[in-house]
């Protein structure tokens, strides 16, 4: 029974997964993004034959190599955690994710293993054309290896193209294209990869700015900045547009997440987007407290526009989604729980009938289960308020991401403008800001994942499987031990990366 669940275990398992995923995501975006930028540098070298571009390309390749080496396989730990801590979930989604993830892993491994070596070892040993092709293939392979894991994540947020099999307890894929090409998945992939490109551009800008401030490797730094800022500007603008598209998708399929990250308790027409506001952390969905503390500014109609592509449209708030809103034909968690409990009860009755070999009864219960199965997950909630995710964390993470994301194109534009004017090296204030842009990029990217993952709580699979049911029945102590082991391991690896990276940056391109 749910009251016997060790919620401490669930929370520790979630914390462990968050730790692993956030650590993994320090390395992944840099790999995804910098491989494209390096491919551009390499292309310019091949086109111009200018040795400065070769030196520059080799230098950024080396830093990419450090990042890749420290980051490689950190994602595998998440797979361990699935099998140990989240065994119910792993079993239930195995049919959807298992084979594609394995195929993608093997394909990406061979693609990367082949072209990665040519990219690093191929200088003067293979033709320039094949060498350049290999560099582009490393970029393609790295980004391809992110496809299915992001599709999988999108599917958990919007589980389309599947049917639950009550005999095997598995979600089975019914329509591959629906899973792989759902708008949610496409937005997730494009948003993750374009934001990775801008993060990689900031990585290059941070280091190049530091060189310019120190008066070192000036030509290399300026050239690196021009290409990185151009690609970064394009990526940052694209990220804003597909971020808006993501918000629209969220409004359609996860309205509770949208309401939470905007702190919208009461549904509104012409709903405003919060520009400035301090969320009231103490407020509950059922009380009358103000959602914001003190001064706050909303941009009228913008949330409605974002959610429904119409200024005057109604955006449901958390109260509407918990208790229902007949006027706007919104089913609340209260009503969904009733149906969910019928789904669970039918599933149980079906199981008993099958055991008793009573086919007629089994068919009746199966039909009943199929009638209510889309609400299955709600059958496990103890109270409807559990359908609300942590509001303050979702709200703060979303606004950190949006504020930083809006600032990024301006920073890239600044770099391009002063590069064009030829006085970038004199703009110490911009270079000073530039040195921390990579950290800002990491903050925005991690905040984005917090919005995505915290904002969808309590679900592992939206509406179908709560996090509390996805877990393995372990004790909290077991997970705590490995949590702290990971913390130590990750800290050591991060220290190693930073040390090696700083040493290579200090050496600079001459020694390469």
């Amino acid at each position, binding site marked *: *029974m*749910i009251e016997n*669940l060790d919620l401490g275990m669930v929370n520790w398992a979630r914390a462990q997964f968050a730790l692993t995923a956030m650590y993994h995501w320090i390395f992944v975006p840099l790999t995804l993004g910098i491989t494209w930028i390096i491919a551009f540098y390499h292309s310019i070298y091949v086109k111009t034959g200018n040795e400065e571009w070769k030196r520059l390309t080799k230098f950024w390749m*080396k830093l990419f*190599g*450090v990042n890749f*080496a*420290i980051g*490689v*396989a950190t994602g*595998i*730990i998440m797979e*361990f*955690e699935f*099998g*140990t801590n989240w*065994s*119910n979930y*792993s*079993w*239930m989604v195995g049919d959807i994710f298992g084979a594609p993830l394995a195929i993608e892993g093997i394909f990406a491994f061979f693609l990367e293993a082949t072209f990665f*070596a040519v990219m*690093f*070892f191929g200088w003067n*040993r*293979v033709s320039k054309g094949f060498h350049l092709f290999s560099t582009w293939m490393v970029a393609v392979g790295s980004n391809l290896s992110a496809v299915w894991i992001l599709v999988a994540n999108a599917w958990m947020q919007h589980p389309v193209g599947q049917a639950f099999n*009550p*005999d*095997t*307890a*598995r979600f089975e894929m019914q329509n591959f294209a629906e899973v792989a090409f759902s708008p949610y998945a496409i937005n997730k992939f494009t948003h993750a990869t374009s934001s990775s490109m801008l993060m990689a551009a900031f990585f290059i800008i941070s280091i190049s700015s530091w060189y310019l401030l120190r008066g070192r490797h000036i030509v290399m730094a300026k050239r690196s900045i021009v290409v990185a800022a151009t690609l970064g500007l394009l990526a940052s603008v694209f990220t804003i547009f597909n971020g808006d598209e993501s918000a629209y998708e969220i409004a359609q399929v996860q309205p509770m997440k949208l309401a939470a990250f905007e702190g919208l308790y009461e549904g509104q027409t012409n709903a405003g987007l919060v520009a400035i506001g301090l969320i009231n952390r103490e407020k509950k969905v*059922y009380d009358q407290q103000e959602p914001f503390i003190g001064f706050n500014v909303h941009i009228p109609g913008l949330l409605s526009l974002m959610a429904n592509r119409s200024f005057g449209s109604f955006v449901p708030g958390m109260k509407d989604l918990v208790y229902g809103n007949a006027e706007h034909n919104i089913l609340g968690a*209260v009503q969904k*729980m*009733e149906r*969910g*409990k019928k789904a*669970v*009860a039918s*599933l*149980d009755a079906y*199981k008993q009938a099958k055991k008793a070999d009573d086919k007629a009864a089994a068919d009746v219960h199966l039909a009943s289960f199929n009638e209510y199965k889309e609400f299955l997950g709600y*059958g*496990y*909630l*103890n*109270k409807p*308020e559990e359908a609300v995710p942590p509001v303050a964390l979702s709200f703060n993470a979303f606004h950190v991401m949006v504020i930083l994301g809006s600032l990024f194109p301006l920073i890239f534009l600044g770099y391009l403008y002063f590069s064009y004017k030829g006085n970038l090296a004199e703009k110490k204030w911009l270079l000073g800001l530039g040195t921390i842009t990579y950290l800002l990029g990491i903050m925005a990217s991690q905040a984005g994942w917090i919005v995505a993952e915290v904002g969808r709580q309590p679900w592992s699979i939206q509406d179908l499987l709560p996090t*509390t*049911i996805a877990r*393995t029945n*372990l004790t909290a102590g077991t997970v705590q*031990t*490995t949590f702290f*082991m990971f913390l130590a*391991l990750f800290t050591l*690896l991060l220290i*190693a990366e930073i040390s*090696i990276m700083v040493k*290579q940056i200090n050496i600079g391109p001459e020694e390469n």
Partner: protein
Amino acid sequence: MNGPPEHRPPLLLRIYQFYRDGFRQMTVGRTLWKIIFIKLFIMFAVLKFFFFPDFLATTFSTDAQRADHVIDQLTQSAQGYTNPVKGERL
């Protein structure tokens, strides 16, 4: 005057030499490979082996048993809902 034709090693040998020479010329790469191997050893030989058994794979021997276990988890984990405002039990 043309000299004797240059002998070109077979493809597999050239690939081998390509990798061998590449690894030999590595500088920071050697440190990185050491880190990779130590990390993989810790992950697979220590963490996976001692701390992260696949629960369903190690506890049950057949897929049917695993499915039954998960179905049991799904059907035993629900409970009645009491409306905190009205005190009604659904």
